[in-house]
């Protein structure tokens, strides 16, 4: 009987949480979705949507380019202090994004290195590249974690066999590891992109919130909320929610495929 009561309690708690999320998200969607079509004629929303898509895609691509070799290093090599290296790389995961943004702002704005970059035209403070760097900095550790776990699940002897069959180490990675972790990569990219397009705290610190300049969707929500333009807020919010839901569905579909394959084995 005690078990039955516990079960009912657990299910009720789960149902209550689900209702809270559905109602709060649904409230925005019900009010916001009808406004999206109308707001899509507004140059500000179009600008912020385009900039959000551009910066999130670029930062996600950068995350992939960096995460693959880093994950390979952490999963395949035996380096002195490997555990410490892995922990340092995970630090941004443990910090609030706004703190990451402050770190980047001080790094690019106040250090000799940042000033040197600025002098050669690579200015990240209050610029679009700053948005990309902020998204990259906040998201790359999670993609590294996903890819590292995937690589650790691949038997290193498969690479060894590929080497004895004529592949150099890069070919062995491309022909064996990469196909085996393809789904993990796609799932990781979807999550990374979904997080990048919604990143606000770090972006606000590094790139600021300037209309028609560094205005991505989350910034647009912040600016329009400040000025009381609720229609614009609801439209931007609805777009971000839809992007999040689509990312989640795509991720779950891929994760499901992986599970099915594992079960069949």
């Amino acid at each position: 009987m005690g078990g039955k009561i516990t079960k009912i309690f657990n299910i009720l708690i789960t149902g209550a949480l689900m209702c809270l999320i559905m109602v709060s998200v649904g409230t925005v969607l019900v009010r916001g979705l009808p406004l999206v079509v109308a707001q899509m004629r507004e140059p500000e929303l179009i600008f912020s949507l385009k900039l959000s898509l551009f910066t999130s895609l670029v930062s996600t691509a950068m995350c992939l380019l960096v995460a693959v070799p880093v994950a390979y290093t952490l999963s395949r090599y035996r380096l002195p202090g490997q555990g410490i290296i892995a922990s340092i790389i995970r630090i941004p995961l443990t910090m609030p994004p706004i703190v990451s943004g402050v770190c980047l702002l001080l790094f690019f704005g106040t250090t000799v290195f940042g000033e040197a970059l600025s002098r050669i035209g690579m200015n990240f403070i209050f610029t679009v590249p700053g948005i990309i760097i902020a998204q990259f900095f906040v998201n790359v550790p999670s993609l590294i974690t996903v890819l590292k776990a995937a690589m650790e699940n691949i038997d290193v002897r498969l690479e060894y066999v590929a080497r004895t069959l004529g592949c150099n180490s890069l070919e062995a990675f491309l022909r064996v590891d990469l196909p085996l972790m393809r789904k993990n990569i796609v799932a990781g990219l979807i999550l990374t992109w979904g997080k990048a397009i919604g990143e606000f705290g770090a972006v606000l610190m590094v790139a600021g919130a300037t209309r028609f300049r560094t205005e991505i969707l989350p910034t647009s929500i912040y600016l329009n909320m400040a000025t009381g333009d609720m229609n614009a807020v609801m439209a931007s919010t609805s777009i971000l929610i839809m992007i999040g839901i689509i990312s989640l569905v795509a991720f779950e579909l891929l994760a499901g495929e992986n599970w099915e394959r594992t079960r069949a084995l």
Partner: protein
Amino acid sequence: MRYRSGEGFLRLCSLNKKLGNFELRNISLNLERAEYFVVLGPSGAGKTLLLEIIAGLQRVDSGETWLGENNITLWPPEKRLFGFMYQDCALFPHLNVKDNITFSLKVRRTHPRIIKKELDEVVDLLGISHLLERYPATLSGGEKQRVALARALVMKPQVLLLDEPLSALDVPAREALRKELKHLHKLTGMLMIHVTHDFTEAMSLADRVAVIVDGALVQVGYPDEIFNRPQSRAVADFVGAQNIFQSKVIIRNGKKFVLFRGSQLAVETDLEGTVNFSFRPEDVVLSSSRQPVNCLQGVVDSVARHGLFTRVVVEVEGTEIVALFALNGGSEYPFCPGKPIFCVIPPKVINVFPCETDCSEHSSAYHL
């Protein structure tokens, strides 16, 4: 350690490799072009590491590897192109059998017509043409082994490295693949290096055997030598000699004897001083009457079925001697515990080998 004289096709010269707490020490071998060479050793002895070093997958800390006239010590695996087959096959799970087998040919951008020809040849040879569209996850252990063999053979390697290829198979599949390996070796004439912990597998397949224990080669020789004439206690123990003792060699009337408790056993050896000696349980003859040579009187301690054999333990002056007999149509053996019996050990089956540690000066024999 004994080597065949002359230059081998593949030569390992004083290889050393430290990996974590484990160390492979001073490995030297001369391997001939067409021999079936078995590296025999217990789990954790460094067999797989040695194979990986030969394949170029692990760099040595010191020492050299030569293939014919070439020093290949620094050659990467893709340049050596030695076939490698792991115990669990390590088939690529994302590729079907056909793509697994043709992997090396595609890497080398071989013409599709030649790929097809080579594929047909190797699948016919191994009888796996019906498996080509299947994925590794759907194959049985024996089928996986054949596919892995085909994948290694299709690139016509000069050396084929086999890491415990029979260990994961059931008895019928193991027998079938053992015959197949022997047949393939005769057919291809390539150097095959096979590592295993199973000495019966080594005896049935090998032209020569090396025994590796704790990262060091302790004996290299022909299967009969390893089996019947182990040169160290570790090898004798590993190949199942079971009766291993220590004694001083005494010479009387020009003949040599070792002492077993109060008895003397005639032996054929060049060694003198304190030695180890061993004899296989299969070579012990049990008799109900005293025999003229090398006969020890004892009492049957226990009799037990041991697979297809009967294992009899005889206590001779407080020391156990193990004898092994093939079962014979359910006939009764007159060996029941407590019964007096004579153990006869012919001089030619007693293997005398040097004592590795500081041996006692006392002449009395004792069980190790």
